[in-house]
């Protein structure tokens, strides 16, 4: 285990990556999604958030290659005359932002709790793990819905609009930490009793440092796997919340919001308004999941 991190990034990983065309493809797709999202303000053909640039006359334009398509709007426009491609890029930005932040949040919480529980042991351990167990019994989407609902009801609407993004991140993030905590705790328990940790303890290295410098590196592999797989879930959770209308505020539409809005036009022939964001969402989640799957198998040789 001590060399898990080193092993993770040596040529083995790279080799198994290169050998799996599916993984390479999904990495490319993920990269396109991420770049498209990150660079949206610079490379998107339009700015869908600038109301002053919208023209109702441009509404419901089909994709550029279709009969009435307009080359200005590659994937067509929606009911407000927004460029679908730009909306997707900006939407993916929100989706990714929420997904990544939620995963980072749950990773931080989960790893911290796991380290603490594993390292301290005793009552603290059983208490923390009991909380994790209880929370694990509730499906994360329900927890996210509830957290969002309670905050929504508790704070005034104007305040809520401003913090909505954080609420969603918190709601999704808080629903996933126990997985991390459990894994980290397990590894910590193993590491805690190893000689080098005991030795470090005896020579008086602070407990926090031991955890951070010795125990933490050993759990990075599995944490990375869980985080990647969770990213897919987090993005889906955000899309689901937004689809139900309780996710990110409509002023910052994510992919889920775009799908919800576009759904109204699905049956009327303006399929591009919902199908393209749907495809973008699926591509993003699928590529992230494939990467996560590959990473799990690559870091866990037994599964090969």
């Amino acid at each position, binding site marked *: 285990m001590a060399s898990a991190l080193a092993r993770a990034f040596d040529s083995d990983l790279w080799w198994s990556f290169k050998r799996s065309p599916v993984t390479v493809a999904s990495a490319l797709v993920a990269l396109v999604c991420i770049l498209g999202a990150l660079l949206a303000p610079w490379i998107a053909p339009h700015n869908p958030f600038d109301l002053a640039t919208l023209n*109702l006359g441009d509404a419901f334009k089909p994709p550029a290659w279709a009969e009435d398509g307009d080359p200005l709007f590659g994937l067509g426009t929606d009911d*407000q005359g927004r460029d679908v491609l730009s909306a997707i890029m900006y939407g993916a930005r929100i989706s990714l932002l929420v997904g990544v932040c939620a995963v980072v949040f749950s990773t931080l919480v989960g790893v911290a709790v796991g380290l603490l529980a594993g390292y301290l042991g005793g009552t603290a351990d059983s208490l923390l793990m009991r909380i994790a167990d209880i929370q694990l019994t509730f499906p994360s989407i329900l927890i996210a819905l509830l957290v969002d609902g309670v905050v929504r009801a508790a704070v005034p609407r104007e305040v809520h609009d401003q913090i909505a993004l954080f609420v969603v991140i918190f709601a999704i993030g808080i629903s996933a930490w126990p997985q991390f905590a459990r894994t980290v705790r397990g590894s910590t328990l193993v590491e805690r009793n190893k000689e080098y940790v005991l030795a470090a303890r005896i020579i008086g290295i602070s407990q926090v440092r031991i955890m951070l410098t010795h125990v933490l590196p050993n759990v990075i592999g599995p944490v990375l796997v869980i985080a990647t797989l969770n990213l897919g879930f987090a993005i889906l959770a955000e899309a689901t919340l937004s689809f139900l209308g309780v996710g990110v505020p409509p002023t910052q539409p994510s992919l889920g919001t775009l799908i919800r809005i576009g*759904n109204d036009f699905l049956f009327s022939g303006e399929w591009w308004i919902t199908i393209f964001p749907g495809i973008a969402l699926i591509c993003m989640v699928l590529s992230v999941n494939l990467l996560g799957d590959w990473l799990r198998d690559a870091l866990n040789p037994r599964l090969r």
Partner: protein
Amino acid sequence: MRVKARAVLRTAAALALLALGAGAVQAKSVRWAASGDPNTMDPHSQNVGTVTMVLQQVYDPLLKRNQDLSLAPGLATEWRQEEPTRWRFTLRQGVKFHEGEALTAEDVAFSVQRALQPTSNFGIYVDTVDHAVAVDERTVDIILKRPDPILSNKLASIFIVSKSWSEKHNATRPQNTRAREEMHTTRNTNGTGAYRLASREPDVRTVLARNEAWWGWGVEGNAGNVTEIVYRPIASDATRIAALLSGEVDFVMDPPLQDLNRLRAAPGVKVIEGPEVRSIFLAMDVNRDELLYGDVKGKNPFKDLRVRQALYQAIDVQAIHRTTMRGQSVVTGTLFPEQVNGYVKAEDVRLPFDAARAKALLEQAGYPQGFSVTLDCPNNRYINDEQICQNIAAMWSRVGVRTAVKSQPLAPFFAQIQKDDTSVYLLGWGVPTLDALYSFQSLLAFRNGDQGDGIWNYGRYSNPRMDALVQRMKTDTGEARQAAITEALKLYREDVPHIPLHHQMIPWAMRSNVQIPHMANNQPYFRWAVVN
């Protein structure tokens, strides 16, 4: 009032079809869907379209409407104005409630009184009524506080309920929905209408069964053959349409506009459309001294006529008509459509769309950089309400008024604006009385505590001239009254308390085997419906 030729034709067609199928007595069921579910079955508690559309199948008013919305005898066979403040109604004979009680004058008097109770939401229809008395078994007098030229039109919205039944079930006053009260009438009905309530599961399904004993089946025109109506609320547009297309539902009252073309092309489905007596407009807070929701401090731009005009002229309503409404709207520059008594064609003129002029006006008014404002908007009440608001936000932003749309479901939306807690909001106004007074009184009169005055005037527009004109509409008759209405319409255009947008067109979608006349009040009357 003009009779709509199309409606007549349609009725004729329906009658002809009925004649063909006459004699075949068999179960004819109509499965009917719309987005919302009635929140009560109490006849006088909620003056909302979704409630009325079910209850008007079950309850009869004294006066009913024809297919062109003109008045016809209902439970009353005759009515006349005995004195300026006393109307006399003669009741139809042999009418029985669904639970068997015979209709008496006491029931009618009781029902009018019930609509007058504080928990009633129908006060606007009886605002001039002082009280009602039963003169004899078949005669009722309604005593007014002041003369009311349109009383008969208003009474067409008051359902008649059994007195003894109400007393028996402790329901002598309407259910108080504000106090979250539940009573017998929340889920039970006892009317005299063509259909009786067979079963009700709120939010799931409401079943109405044909009342063979209805007095009207013999009356000319009431030639429907529907024996059962199953109403189901289906909130999701896509699901509702999918259900109609797959034949699970026969009749959809509110098909989404974007699906109309597809529905028209679909086999076995047809779309009929007609105007609705409902006008969509934006109302601005012209009362506060400081803008409530926006970045202007110390003053309220909406108090400046030039700003109101600028925002008016910044709106390309034709684009909304073409794109968002898909042609299903009648662009307007006035307060109500032509079906409403008092409509003046010459006053139905818009300020032209002119973004440059809008900018210039804003600059003149002292807002060269524009300002920001929040537009309050319902998102499940009117056709494409939220999209319209977004359209307008974009158009206003183009002239520098940075607009944030705050859209919410109708319950919180109404709760908010009813506290005057808004700077500018979108509203749609239907006119069930088909008379101009109803709109002017509710929307533009100053709220002075009088029954009905200014109760929907949340921008708190106040102009003594308007108030005086409203008072004249209440009492004057004939030419004088029309003059008052015309003047009020003119004032409406000059003052710009609202920015009118359009009158809604209401498409109804149904399976091809269903014939039901389209009604401008957006109410289906199944007594005229034919299924084959």
